[in-house]
């Protein structure tokens, strides 16, 4: 149902007691900076903006390789919450190598399985924001592909 890399991450989190789940989320959040674009990397699409739904600017960078597989990079402003940072690292890793169409069709119900019901609550809903943005850039990519085919 989920991409294998993401399924592995979900399984890991589901196996953890609450304290270790939090520690692992913080560890992923610490790694969010590693998801930033590296010097010389080229992208198929870039979407950098500040939305009302998130506390700071978030940049999503999509590269679709010759085999049609998607690779993501992301930049996060300093005000972005820890859980959102964690989800950034998780999704960049878990969705790497899937097609944009597969990413677009991904159901969002895995988020609570990773984060745990305890942490999904008022003032933490932006955990879904990163997934929405990643799906958003995939949709733009697919729309442009279809338009190009029609033209």
């Amino acid at each position, binding site marked *: 149902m989920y991409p294998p890399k993401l399924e592995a991450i979900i399984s890991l989190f589901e196996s953890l007691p609450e304290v270790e789940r939090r520690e692992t989320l913080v560890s992923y959040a610490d790694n969010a900076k590693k998801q930033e674009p590296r010097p010389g990397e080229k992208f198929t699409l870039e979407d950098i903006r500040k939305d009302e739904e998130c506390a700071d600017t978030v940049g999503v960078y999509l590269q679709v390789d010759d085999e049609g597989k998607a690779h993501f990079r992301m930049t996060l402003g300093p005000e972005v*919450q*820890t859980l959102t940072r964690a989800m950034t690292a998780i999704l960049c890793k878990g969705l790497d190598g899937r097609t944009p169409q597969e990413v677009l069709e991904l159901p969002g119900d895995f988020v609570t399985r990773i984060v745990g019901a305890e942490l999904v609550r008022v*003032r933490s809903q932006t955990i879904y924001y990163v997934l929405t943005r990643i799906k958003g850039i995939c949709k733009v990519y697919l729309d442009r592909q279809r338009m190009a085919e029609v033209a």
Partner: protein
Amino acid sequence: MTTSPTEYVHPEALVDADWIEKHQNDNDVRIIESNEDILLYDTGHIPGAVHIDWRTDLQDQVIRDYIAPDKFAELCSRNGISPQTTCVFYGDKANWWACYALWAFRLFGHERVKILNGGRDKWKAEGRTMTREVPKYPRTDYPVPAKRFDKEIRAFADEALAQSKAGKPLIDVRSPGEFKGEITHMAEYPQEGVLRGGHIPGAKSMPWKTATNDDSTFKPASELAKIYFDQCGLKPGTDTVVYCRIGERSSHTWFVLTYLLGLENVRNYDGSWTEWGNKVGAPIERS
């Protein structure tokens, strides 16, 4: 009290980072971090600080209300807090949740409370020491408070309505867009389930942020007096009710009015707009 004080009425309620560094190991002092970002404490905090979560530690997990007095006693006991402990609160978002936690401690009658001026942001910006080590303190036996001081510092919806009908001071500390009913959520935040926009009739708009400087510290007493006495028309001795969306931003203003300006009859309507904006038949003004 004068209407243009040059000093805070309760300056002892504010401490700075130097004070923390000098007193953080005192047995009768407990540093408490309280944040909106629920994992922020885990990423690093002031050495020796304990974490109090505004929802899981302070709120009842079923009913929308605060914990019962015995749960508060347990919370304090497991964090090594006694009634004689001075609790110094700090956190993210310019101390929204620190003020909320302080207000909740006052609900249970804990008197010895302070705020770290500038909160977590200023501490971090100054390059002060932070750690991920979670401290352990010897358990105390905090007595179960005899009552919760709801009547004194908390307002419920019917009391906010009575305040409105009586033309008594109501301060809406949300953003101007929320006050006018143009938006039903804070800018930069998702919708939190409010069906109607606007404000309680008669309320004056004074966003919480008006009371702070850019570094999240509180403005001087003279400037606060101009804001709340001159612009809002508040007067010593008059009942005042403050509100926002869920009671955290209004806790910040409650702290300013109660401790920094010394007003004695300020209550926080913590049900705030997430209650009022959903309440069937509740009167609403838009302007």
